[in-house]
């Protein structure tokens, strides 16, 4: 997308969001819910893609997903903050603040060490959440229905409004992520993935870039967690469990690191496969998921985003 100006990018993105929100009014409820989950979960995977572009993968983004979700639910239940947009932002801020002290430490590690350390952090949080009774222990707790800009959401429309809110917030963050990927800092981050030594000898700091990416991924994931819990109305420690983190990694690998749009497409595909597999093969849906991933890795090793980037004849360039 480096060939498009930020203005045109935003205009196109906003138009797409408006069209999707309008289309949601015609969709059945199960589909709007599925897309809502895909968009909110896709944000967490987008955070992983931010890290992937710098050359590392987090196996523990369930950490920020849970932090954002718990932060939103607790603000709602304990402090009476009910606005959906405010809760989404709060989820991101709390997650980002939590990742802040760990970022310089994690930025020292690469490859499997980075991945396992992030996984360890998420599992520590899982253990804590499961043991703390005031947070509902292993059962978690419910939260009520959020409001939007001071308006109460009627029963019949709450699903659609949350769909619109989630899509709007996710779309906006996707556009911001695209701007970041196309920025000077974004390009240097991509160069780190290729050759960290060179970036250092040009005068750039790989560790600083990695730390910043981790905090950004934390913020995005936290927003995703908050949006998810608002639609579900319930949160439990499984938000931070390693299998949840694994699903986010699955989506990031399926999408590849080149395209923001591909992340949400991949997330939607996962939700579709999950829903239909659960329906038709309730006990073996993970098998279908595994086979699906094998096919993707075999035939589209660079992710879904490479499908339309390859068509431009510029394999390593960016797309929307």
């Amino acid at each position, binding site marked *: 997308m*480096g060939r498009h100006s*930020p203005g045109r990018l935003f205009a196109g993105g906003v138009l797409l969001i408006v069209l999707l929100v309008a289309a949601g009014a015609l969709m059945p409820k199960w589909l709007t819910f599925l897309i809502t989950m895909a968009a909110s979960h896709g944000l967490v995977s987008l955070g992983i893609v931010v890290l992937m572009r710098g050359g590392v993968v987090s196996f523990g983004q369930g950490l920020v997903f849970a932090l954002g979700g718990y932060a939103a639910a607790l603000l709602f239940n304990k402090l009476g903050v009910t606005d959906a947009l405010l809760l989404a932002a709060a989820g991101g801020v709390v997650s980002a603040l939590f990742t802040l002290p760990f970022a310089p430490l994690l930025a020292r590690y690469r490859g499997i060490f980075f991945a396992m350390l992030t996984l360890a952090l998420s599992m520590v949080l899982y253990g804590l959440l499961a043991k703390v009774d005031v947070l509902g222990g292993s059962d978690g707790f419910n939260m009520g229905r959020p409001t939007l800009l001071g308006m109460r959401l009627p029963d019949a429309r709450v699903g659609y409004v949350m769909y619109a809110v989630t899509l709007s917030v996710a779309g906006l963050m996707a556009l911001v992520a695209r*701007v*970041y990927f*196309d*920025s*000077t*800092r*974004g*390009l*240097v981050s*991509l*160069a780190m993935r*290729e*050759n960290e*030594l*060179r*970036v*250092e*000898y*040009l*005068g*750039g*700091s790989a560790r600083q870039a990695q730390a910043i990416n981790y905090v950004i991924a934390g913020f995005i994931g936290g927003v995703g967690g908050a949006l998810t819990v608002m639609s579900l109305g319930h949160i439990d420690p499984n938000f931070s469990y390693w299998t949840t983190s694994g699903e986010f990694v699955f989506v990031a690998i399926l999408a590849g690191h080149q395209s923001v749009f591909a992340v949400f497409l991949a997330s939607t595909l996962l939700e579709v496969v999950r829903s239909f597999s659960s329906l038709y093969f309730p006990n073996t849906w993970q098998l279908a998921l595994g086979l699906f991933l094998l096919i993707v890795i075999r035939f589209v090793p660079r992710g879904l985003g490479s499908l339309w980037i390859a068509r431009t004849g*510029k*394999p*390593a*360039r960016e797309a929307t």
Partner: protein
Amino acid sequence: MSAAPLLRATGIEKRFGAVVAASELNLDIAAGEKVSLIGSNGAGKTTFVNMITGYLKPDAGSITLAGRDITRLSPRAITHLGVARSFQIPQLCAELTVLDNMLVANAVDAGALSFWRPARRPQAVARARELLQRFDLADHTGRRVAELPGGVRKLLDIAMALTGSPQLLLLDEPTSGVAAEEKYPLMDRVMRALGEEKMTVLFVEHDMDIVTRYASRVIAFYSGRVIADGAPAATLDEPEVRRYVTGTLR
């Protein structure tokens, strides 16, 4: 030699266990000099370059750049003071295009990395293209680095180092791995591009024809010591250099 050298190494010592990589190195490099470092493998040339760039720290002694002590500074800090380097094996981003590699160098050189300023904004692209033009790399602008031949990669590696207009440029074996008939054209392009900058250059080289043709001064290393230092013809004619470096004296 001018009174205030650009680079001064004083009493540099460096050991790796029993191996002496640098012993009592005392060198002054004046601004604008084109200096070639020669010596057999293990003589201490690359160790010296690595100490200048901050990758290695000397056990004793000091290195100053334009009067400022850089001995204990990090490679990044030294880069920001105006020291750049290329590598024996070009260090590039293989999956990015030639232009994007230059834009990475541009972006880092600009100092203030931004979250929103486009990396491919017209001014940055124009600056990158201008430098690529100087190295005759304009035809390769849109190609992925992974697709490029070795000589072109060498040139790109040097062009990236030059992006920040450094005071001192270190070239680690710029012609190694390049076909014999390509060496002179490659060095001609490099020196032509550097000539416009009037830059101080230290280059490590094994090909004595290249050394004779492009260096204004030659420093010969053997076992971590400087065994000869001076004009190319005179230095290469020194008995110790002929015995230990060029192998023309038995």
